[in-house]
């Protein structure tokens, strides 16, 4: 009896019934395609940001090729000026060669086995691509010659810097007093 009355009522509203059927069909379609929109939106966002990145790369890479070529030439020049660790005699001879241009006497050039704490692994200025060879140099000479010598160390082809220095003045019988100096110098070299 109750079923009949519902059917009767539905028969009274055919348009509402048709609408209900359509609404259910639409709801099913919306439900089934629910993820599609979200997926497409996220894919579009992803592609948009990729495209922005690609465009940004293109803008930033303007003249990059010529810059890289210039920089690589500089790197090649740096490589050619590095000390090679295995050429110990040549390296030491190079450090003695400064004697020729300056009025100084290099008494000793000694290769130190100790690593420089500034540039070693974990140091404040750690060298990752290259390494530093440590030499202890002792010499004597006049003040002017000594100043020219340490200046020429910095201006030489090899990359040299003075880490520690110790200068003691000694009085000569002549007019100019002489200096005795002990230097701890670092030379940039190829990594082993």
């Amino acid at each position, binding site marked *: 009896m109750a079923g009949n009355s519902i059917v*009767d009522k539905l028969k009274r*509203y055919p*348009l*509402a019934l048709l*609408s209900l059927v*359509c*609404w259910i069909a*639409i*709801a099913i379609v*919306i439900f089934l*395609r629910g993820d*599609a*929109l979200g997926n*497409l*939106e996220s*894919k579009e966002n992803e*592609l948009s940001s*990729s*495209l922005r990145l*690609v*465009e940004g*790369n*293109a803008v*930033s890479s303007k003249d*990059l*090729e010529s*810059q*890289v070529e210039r*920089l*690589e030439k*500089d*790197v090649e020049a*740096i490589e050619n000026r590095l000390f090679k660790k295995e050429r110990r005699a040549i390296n030491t001879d190079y450090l003695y060669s400064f004697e020729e241009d300056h009025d100084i006497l290099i008494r000793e050039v000694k290769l130190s086995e100790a690593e420089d*704490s*500034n*540039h070693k692994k*974990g*140091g*404040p*200025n*750690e*060298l*990752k*691509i*290259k390494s*530093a060879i440590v030499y202890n140099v002792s010499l004597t000479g006049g*003040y002017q010659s000594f*100043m020219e010598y*340490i200046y020429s160390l910095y201006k030489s082809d090899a*990359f040299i*810097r*003075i*880490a520690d*220095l*110790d*200068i*003691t*003045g000694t009085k000569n019988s002549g007019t100019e007093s002489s200096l005795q100096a002990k230097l701890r110098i*670092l030379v*940039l070299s190829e990594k082993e």
Partner: protein
Amino acid sequence: MSKKKDLQPYWRPNVRIVETLPDIKVVRTDFIINFIAVSLVVITGVYLLQREYRVFALSRSISNLEQQINVSNADNNKNLKLNQRFFEAANYVLELQSFYSAPFRPYHLIAELTQSKPEEMRFTKLSLSESVATKGKTVSFNINIRCEVPDLTVLNSFKSILAESTLLKPEGYTATIVESFQAKNVQTGFFPCSVSVVIKPIDEKSKKDKK
């Protein structure tokens, strides 16, 4: 009989079949159900159409973007390789900078010290050394000068000169100058003395804390 009539005067049998009677309400309400149902379908349908249109538009936009990315991919790969080469080469130069990282060159320092010292002062020993602090990974520079002065005011004026020197106070560093002296050497008439300068990088953390 008359008493019964009085009790139920207006009662009549109801023989109407309600379903078959016409709707005689003054304001008809049946259409509201249809209206609501149709409205719901229309609203949901429009929503669905809108979604489908957005899906269509997004699909078109995605295929456009993919096409654009594909076109620029070759150039982008080339740019990325160039970029990698640039960074590799730049690291070489940066490492060189790191090797020479010191606030001054020794020849500048020696020249500054010898030129700025008072004439009456004599240097007997000069040393410069680097020291690495494991905590905070910093490098400090220690300068030690052993000297002789005929008068202690000369030592004091040298200390003042050093305190004013810009070379001993490079940017990002702080310098501490300490002087000391011994009793006058009666043979030479000079006071043996020493000046110690410690140049340390400013601790960024403590600098911030002070602010």
